[in-house]
């Protein structure tokens, strides 16, 4: 039987955040991460996709000191604590940049372009940054 607080739960939608840009150079990656963190408070079904230069956002060993920017990549490791655990990397983007799953600072699932397309079909809301 549902508890009273469970009955008060609002609708749950599938939110997908698609990260396509390099972590530095523009602010998209950093501000996208801010939206993702806020979304955690709404108890939605959240997933993240890293494709194109976005795969660099979660590359290990970032050192941004030389460009005077904060290295915000450790924040991706905190996502698990917010119950955001569905992280996908597009295979083609990763491989064309000479990267493997071992280069990523968080556990990710590697999906081909076709698999990703099917996953996108299932989403209610897709936010691209």
């Amino acid at each position, binding site marked *: 039987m549902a508890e009273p607080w469970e009955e008060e739960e*609002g*609708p749950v*939608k599938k*939110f997908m955040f698609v990260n396509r840009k390099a972590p530095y150079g523009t*602010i*998209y990656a950093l*501000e996208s991460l*801010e*939206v993702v963190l*806020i*979304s955690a*408070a*709404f108890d*939605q079904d959240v997933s993240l996709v890293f494709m194109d230069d976005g795969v660099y956002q979660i590359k290990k060993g970032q050192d941004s000191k030389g460009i005077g920017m904060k290295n915000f990549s450790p924040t991706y490791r905190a996502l698990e604590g917010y119950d955001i655990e569905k992280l996908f990397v597009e295979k083609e983007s990763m491989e064309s940049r000479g990267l493997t799953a071992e280069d990523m600072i968080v556990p990710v699932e590697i999906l081909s372009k076709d698999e990703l397309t099917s996953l996108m079909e299932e989403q*209610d*809301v*897709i*936010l*691209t*940054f």
Partner: protein
Amino acid sequence: MKLALLVNEGPYQHQAADSALQFVKAAVAKGHEIFRVFFYHDGVNNGTRFAVPPQDDRNITVEWSKLAEEHKIDLVVCIAAAQRRGILDENEAKRQGKSGDNIAPGFRISGLGQLIEAGIQAERLVVFGD
């Protein structure tokens, strides 16, 4: 249909704001409901009343304000993105010790939760940007 928009680019630099404006006008003309327009990244610059484009050019901010007034459209500027870029309402200006505010009529400043809520409440969330 209940629609929401996300505008991620500033006016004039990028066509996203123009496309979003035209989209809202077309949707309203067809009888759709616009739940909210949320401005993020440089999109927050759509909300400054201090921009003075040449007289023979369109004034994007004025067009937004007109739409807000005529159709009661909720125009929300992200507070975190706005603070980085110097978009302030009266309360924020006071709180940050700044000499004035520049938010345009019909716009309000609020948190990113308003974007997620728009995604939940609207049947479609349409993103304008790159």
